[in-house]
């Protein structure tokens, strides 16, 4: 009996974000007739979601291990700025530009992981918060705090990823990239040994260690991967923004955390799915998009997004309480 009950509420919780997304769609469709449900607008939402989806995929890994990566926004911006600086110095080979951005960001992620696991810092909150400012500073340093424009500078192939749309209805390439990345993540998290280990280290680090899993190595890989995703996000950003600008990173980290949590990840670690994260990211973009169409300014948008984040964490807490109750019942049996 009890089992059945918890299963039903479990499913409701999992469907939660999907239902909220559906309700949002209905509400915006009714209140914004002819504006919201248009192919161009929907494609626009996808385009706006891409960056967050890519960054959130790395964040998800950190959250599954009961950690967090607060440096993602500025890591991605650093990658974009690096492309700009290299371009200004006459390097226009797209392969070189893309690779340098990804390598540097991956290295940044590796540093995050190393600080956490080898210096025994108490929580990745500390190491990644510190590195966030370091990345920010480096980005300002290499660009001399100036905005670098990408338009007509001969690096269009790099911009193509973030800018181009395909098919007659204008499907963004960047979102195609997201689908590809997410499919790989799905296999990685569910069907690879490392993926399972990431969940186990997050679910119970001590049990993982006592089972011979090298928890520290797993954690280092997680933060390195998060950095790698930031590198890709940085490349997409270049095409999307057409500029390298350190000021544009403001909400990338919190957006990514919100997407993961809305999608079922937990600050307690051990859980979260990649498709849930995509739903979370889509939900955030849809809210932003709808409010934009209402001509709501940044002020209103920030307020709403803020409330959504709190609501998301509330869901997380409720989920935790329900699990604790299920555990208690299981123990009483």
């Amino acid at each position, binding site marked *: 009996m009890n089992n059945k009950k918890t299963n039903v509420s479990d499913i409701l919780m999992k469907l939660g974000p999907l239902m909220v997304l559906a309700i949002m769609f209905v509400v915006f469709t009714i209140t914004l007739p002819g504006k919201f449900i248009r192919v161009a607008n929907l494609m626009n939402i996808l385009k706006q979601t891409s960056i967050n989806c890519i960054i959130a995929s790395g964040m998800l890994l950190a959250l599954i291990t009961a950690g967090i990566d607060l440096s993602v926004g500025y890591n991605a911006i650093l990658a974009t700025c690096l492309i700009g600086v290299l371009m200004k110095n006459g390097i226009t080979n797209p392969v070189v530009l893309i690779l340098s951005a990804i390598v540097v960001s991956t290295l940044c992620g590796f540093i995050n992981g190393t600080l956490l696991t080898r210096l025994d810092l108490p929580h990745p909150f500390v190491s990644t918060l510190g590195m966030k400012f370091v990345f920010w500073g480096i980005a300002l340093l290499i660009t001399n705090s100036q905005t670098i424009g990408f338009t007509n500078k001969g690096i269009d192939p790099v911009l193509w990823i973030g800018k181009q749309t395909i098919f007659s209805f204008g499907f963004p390439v960047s979102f195609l990239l997201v689908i590809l990345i997410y499919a790989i993540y799905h296999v990685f998290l569910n069907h690879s040994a490392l993926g*399972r280990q990431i*969940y186990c280290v997050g679910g*119970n680090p001590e049990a993982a260690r006592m*089972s*011979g899993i090298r928890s520290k190595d797993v954690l280092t890989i997680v933060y390195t991967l998060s950095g790698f995703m930031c590198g890709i996000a940085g490349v997409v950003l270049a095409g999307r923004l057409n500029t390298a600008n350190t000021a544009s990173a403001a909400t990338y980290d919190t957006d990514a955390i919100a997407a993961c949590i809305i999608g079922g990840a937990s600050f307690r670690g051990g859980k979260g799915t990649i498709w849930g994260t995509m739903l979370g990211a889509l939900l955030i973009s849809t809210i932003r998009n709808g409010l934009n169409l209402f001509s709501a300014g940044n002020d209103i948008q920030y307020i709403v997004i803020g409330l959504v984040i709190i609501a998301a964490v509330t869901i997380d807490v409720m989920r935790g309480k329900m699990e604790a109750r299920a555990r208690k019942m299981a123990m009483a*049996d």
Partner: protein
Amino acid sequence: MSEYVVELKHVTKRFPGVIAMRDMHIQIRPGEIHGLVGENGAGKSTLIKVLTGVHVPEEGEIYVEGKKVSFSNPVQAREAGIACVYQELNIVPMLPVVDNVFMGRKITNKYGLLDYPRMHREAKEALATLGHPDADTKRECGKLGMGMQQMVEIAKAVSINAKLLIMDEPTSSLGEQEIKQLMKTVRDLKERGIAILFVSHKLEELFELCDRVTVMRDGEHIITEDMANMTNDKLIQAMVGRTLENQFPKEFGVKGECMLKCEHLTSIGVLKDVSFEAYGGEILAFAGLVGAGRTETMRALFGADKLDGGDIYIRGQKVNNRNPSQSIRNGIAFLTEDRKGQGLVLSQSVKTNMILANMKKFMKGPLLKGKQIEENAQGMVDTLRIKTPSTEEVTMQLSGGNQQKVVIGKWINCDADIYIFDEPTRGIDVGAKVEVYNVMNQLVKEGKCLIMVSSELPEVLGMADRVIVMREGRVMAEIERGSKHFNQEDIMRAAWGGALT
């Protein structure tokens, strides 16, 4: 006014599936030092928790100075004058002494702010009465020695005018000098009319200190006697005095080669020169009291904790088990005593937990072989008779016994040579226990080396081929099955520090 400061009558405390305390009674006189002894799991902790309001008993009455009381939380017990110094001290190490003494209590001045000058004065007075007139109440507690931290806890108890002070294993983490000071303090408290309930694993302390002693066993009251009428042997008899039922399906393997040899394992403050050998085809049991260093020995040889000295040989080959991952590769499996904390990832499925310790076996390139994992898990569920709706069920949902079998399955998947089972049947029901014993029999018959750490003497006598008794980080005795010392009394004697002749 009653003859007793605290009295318990017919108290029963149940937990899901177990009766932790049955029809317990105890009477404590004002100003007496009352010893409380019993084996591991005899119900001493439950008794303490009932007295301090942590547990609410289902049946029975508690009287404080003749008045019937009922505690539903620790604050009520404290207000009634019952204080406890736990083995794990409740000290906030970052805060100064004065704040620790006044934790949960305060003195305010006329503005409603804390009156620190008075609090310092009173904390200082309290510590002075305990024999520490020069204590610095501004000092951070974390910077004090264990003995002094304990004094802060006692000061906390005294400053709320406790009538009964419970001390749970107070000397277990103290040095010799500190123990002397503590004993003096306890006697001073007695002089002031405060009753002490002194829980200890050290018989000599009880004889030195206590006026009377109560023995508990299996959650029940066995005897209460004047210490003067007691002897070592009488106490031990009272603690173990139960008969062995035939619930141990012991089968014998063929003793094979020496699989594991440990020489002079040393870990500062924990293990002192621990040496032993374990053979294929036999069950080697480690007996002793909680905290005797048995688990610590296993953790150290498994590479979970660092060793300060000593050598480990597996099949004659010297090995360096720096971490669990290496030990597993060297053929050791370690079923930890804390199933939920160290054995399982509770949020993961049965089948994921099964492959946790040996994923390589189920990998093809970087990917996992889903079908093989499913078949393996299904096979384990069948052979170990794990009751679960499916192999996808998260282990959180299983009962303790079934959870334990999942962990056993995980280690069987490692194809180890040496299996360490630390308290393998703790907290699981009788039927599951027998199934765990059968797995152990099976492993031994396959010629594996099995080491079992157990705090339950009947289990040790029922299953072991050889017993090593530890006490305070040392090996006290090694007893073969069939030797005249292979009985509860002698194992207990060794565990309590007595010599076997």
